[in-house]
């Protein structure tokens, strides 16, 4: 029941964002990406669309973006962060694009830590292994701004469910891409 409530909140929030999109006048198809550039590589940091090195592919009004950041620390901690986002361009002009996005993020953390406890009056510690597989889902709007012709700055905001739907909150993402043909 709790999850149903969160889905309703997320659904209403997304509907709120989508209303202008539904109501807008139809526009002619725009070329892929800025100045017809389809591919973009860069850095991305998001609460629900992944962190790290990112790649974006644009086709007409649609775009897909992937970001990943694997980390490994002296065998006692492994963290893998993978995100993917799907975008649909709502409006475009010479300087910027407005789009809707849906983001997915998978985070896997595995590590070891000491657990402290008292036994027979003595302090003891035990090495335990922990692992957290987390999934996040988000939806919202994004703004792509052209910077120095070759770069694109992306700002995204919306609503998301985090930590396997145990938390609902606002999501925000930022990215900088170098555009390739």
């Amino acid at each position: 029941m709790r999850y149903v409530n969160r889905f309703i909140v997320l659904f209403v929030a997304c509907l709120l964002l989508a209303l202008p999109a539904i109501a807008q006048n139809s526009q002619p198809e725009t070329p892929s990406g800025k100045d017809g550039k389809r591919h973009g590589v860069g850095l991305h940091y998001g609460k629900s669309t992944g962190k790290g090195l990112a790649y974006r592919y644009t086709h007409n009004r649609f775009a897909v973006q992937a970001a990943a950041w694997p980390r490994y620390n002296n065998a006692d901690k492994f963290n893998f962060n993978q995100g993917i986002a799907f975008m649909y361009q709502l409006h475009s002009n010479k300087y910027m694009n407005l789009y809707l996005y849906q983001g997915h993020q998978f985070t896997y953390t595995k590590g070891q830590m000491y657990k402290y406890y008292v036994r027979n009056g003595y302090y003891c510690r035990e090495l335990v292994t922990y692992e957290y597989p987390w999934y996040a889902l988000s939806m919202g709007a994004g703004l792509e701004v052209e910077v120095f012709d070759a770069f694109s700055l992306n700002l995204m905001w919306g609503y998301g469910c985090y930590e396997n739907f145990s938390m609902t909150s606002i999501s925000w993402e930022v990215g900088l891409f170098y555009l390739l043909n």
Partner: protein
Amino acid sequence: MYNHMSIMQKLLLFLPLQVLLVFSVSAQDITRASDDTVHHNERYGLGGAVGSFTGWGPSVRYDYDKLSLQFTYSCYDDNAKDRFNLFGFAFRHKSMETGNSVFGPKLGVLLVNERSPLFREASYHSLIDIYLNEGVVLSLGAAYEYLYKQHLSLNLAAGYGFYAFGKNKTLHLSFEAGMYYMF
């Protein structure tokens, strides 16, 4: 009878009057434009806002001629322990326009619902209490908008707000900043 009414009920009675006031001012302009068979300026905006007029978070806007409606909503829910909901809506009238700048009065209503557990240490035991913060902020002030490159709208608003949270009722300054992509 009237004395037994809560502050929320009083505000709910007062609110439609204010909304009606802003709408009636705007409606005059809309009617005038219709008579002159002028094409209505209808625009939509997607962006975000921060302030006490409508709260903070993702925001949508709808402009129709000289009237502008704005909705802002933000939420947080962590396992149903900590949670808050901020829902705000605002009306703005475009009274004066010079170049890319727009001025006008703005009325904002913000509904706040916040709930979180409080941990207190007493006699070596942790007592759990619930912190509840529910209320309404009613703001009235002046708004300024600057349209950059015909699509990026930067908004500022300042005025006075009536903050009603439980038994606390305060009249204080109210501000808001917002940014929208208009299309």
